[in-house]
């Protein structure tokens, strides 16, 4: 079985800062991570590979530095990494991204074997659109299973997949044909810690790097800024919160006194909490 997982290198949103003067996002020095939603898909892919045999390829489109994220995916235990990178891709929105990734997926199929399942994350933490996965499914005519909370079964003989999908008001149990595109919900599993062998293999592995031409993309009008109808009109930071943090002076006090002071502060701010607490303790 061949599974391809599409991952994206994103700025660690917990560490993004807003320039205090210009109010723009400071990208410089912000650490990058694998989009956290993608890790649930990667782990699910590796579990099915471990169960049924085969290979997991990770694919990413991005700047050359995105190779770091791909290498990290190899450390977790993926078998192969492909980086799609070209200046023509700069400024891609979801339409242009799904176009380029679809071309790369077709090329991966020709080169390393047709994928049975393509995974993407549910969405990214920087764009938050949740459009690229469905876009790929549409372009490559894959059956689409989004917001999957559990893959119940993959049957390679009958080429079918059964999955539970979270929907409004309940859970859908769906069965469809392979090849399929799956996006996993967060919290469905936890990314594993790769073994020493995985880590050593990842450190020595070469990430396959493809340009637009390598991936067989001839229509550059559909790539990057030119292929992106989305226009970013303005980027702005929300106004800073007017509330200031209060400081509890702890020096020279016992832990009990500190706790008292802290609780007094919380109760003063939110009288409801005190009332609720009294109620629950006294059993009313």
């Amino acid at each position: 079985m061949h599974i391809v997982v599409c991952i994206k290198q994103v700025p660690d949103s917990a560490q993004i800062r807003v320039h205090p003067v210009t109010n723009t996002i400071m990208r410089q020095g912000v650490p990058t991570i694998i989009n956290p939603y993608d890790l649930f898909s990667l782990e699910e892919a590796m579990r099915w590979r471990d169960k049924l045999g085969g290979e997991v390829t990770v694919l990413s489109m991005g700047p050359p530095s995105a190779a770091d994220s791909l290498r990290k995916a190899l450390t977790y235990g993926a078998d192969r990494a492909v980086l799609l990178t070209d200046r023509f891709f700069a400024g891609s929105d979801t339409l242009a991204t799904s176009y380029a990734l679809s071309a790369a997926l077709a090329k991966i199929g020709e080169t390393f074997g047709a994928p049975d399942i393509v995974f993407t994350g549910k969405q990214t933490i920087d764009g938050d659109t949740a459009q690229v996965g469905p876009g790929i499914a549409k372009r490559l005519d894959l059956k689409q299973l989004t917001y999957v909370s559990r893959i119940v079964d993959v049957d390679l003989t009958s080429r079918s997949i059964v999955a539970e999908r979270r929907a409004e008001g309940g859970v859908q149990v769906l069965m469809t044909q392979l090849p399929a595109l799956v996006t996993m919900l967060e919290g469905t599993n936890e990314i594993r810690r790769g073994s020493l062998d995985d880590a050593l293999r990842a450190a020595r592995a070469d990430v396959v790097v493809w340009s637009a031409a390598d991936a067989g993309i001839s229509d550059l009008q559909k790539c990057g800024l030119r292929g992106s109808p989305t226009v970013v009109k303005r980027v702005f930071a929300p106004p800073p919160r007017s509330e200031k943090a209060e400081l509890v002076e702890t020096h020279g006090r016992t832990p009990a006194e500190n706790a008292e002071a802290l609780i007094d502060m919380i109760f003063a701010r939110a009288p409801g909490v005190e009332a609720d607490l009294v109620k629950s303790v006294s059993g009313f």
Partner: protein
Amino acid sequence: MIERFDAIVIGAGMAGNAAAFTLASRGLSVLQLERGEYPGAKNVQGAILYANMLEKIIPDFREDAPLERHVVEQRFWFMTERAHTGMQYRSEEFNEERPNRYTIIRSQFDRWFSKKAQEKGAILLTETTALELVQDAYGKVIGVRTDRAGGTIMADVVVLAEGVNGLLGTRAGLRKTPKADQVALAVKEMHFLAPEIIEQRFNIQGDEGVVIEAAGAVSEGMAGMGFLYTNKESVSIGIGCIVSDFAETGTSPYQLLEKFKKHPSIRPLLEGSEVKEYAAHLIPEGGFKAVPKLFGNGWVVVGDAAQLNNAVHREGSNLAMTSGRLAAEAIFQIKSRREPMTADNLSLYEKMINDSFVMKDLKKYKDMPALLHTQSQNLFLTYPQLVSTAMENFLRVDGTPKVDKEKATVSALKAKRGWTGLVGDAVRVARAWR
């Protein structure tokens, strides 16, 4: 399959990267283990980089290393609660083509340094903690066990560049855990400031930088120092004191830093800044007398783990880099002679480091840590106060005859320390300095 390397380097800080780079560029197979998410993720330093020691490893480092500012001005401040008496040195000579020292940010710098080692062929595993040294029946270190599934990695020699705590070496009984009076605990913050504001505030332009070292009342009588370094678009401010002093006084490091930041001489320099990060780290300050055994059967220890830090000159990373490089060169020489990595052979590393500035400098100041510790009240509180009072007497014009003012200054000195005390202090400092 059990993997085997010529050398395993534990840690990707200054010492580890210097060792890995040197070993790999001599053609040895090197595995480097780093517990952090990336090299530098766990590393904390002020930080000043001294160019000379890095040039000996990577001569053209200036081409692509992430350097912040080159230092053109150094200020030494003796602090009282409300004043500082300063001495500063600024020279156009420091605006040279190949500047002598730079401010750096370790999380960026260590990544770059480690990449350089990888380009030479070193294999780096991050988020991988070495748990235990593996020894054979004769006690020779033959490999390392990590926290990843899959057992042991073997090597001819293990270079312990594991930092000040050095759990691996202490667990294996190669050296003792540093004592509380041999390590300082330093805390620091990075404050974001626009480059134009930094240039204006510190009277610098372009990539010029300023360093402030502050001693005195800021450490509340403990042996310690504060610092403020200018980066490209931030300033690093921190303070550190000997751990046993913190324990005795019950003062917490962050309180000290808060107070330092509010000092009337410091506060205007930070005005309007935004805190980017907060970090704390231990610094080996035991000096020459605290340096443990540096080599053994199948292992060498370098950098902070070996307590190689010159507290008087605030130099650590260059001793770390030099020890890493020398250890690697010793290993390479032994390897080229096709000899085993026995303690006898590895003693070459100790010989090399004894002949270098590292041990010569540490030896010069061997009595300084003890002096600073026992005399901390005098050196950090009494004298700065006396100097400050003398300066104020000298400068304030209020109709008091100058003769009376000078008398007041002299009698203050005498009252505080007495003549014998003054002479004794001078002799003690001179001796430790010699």
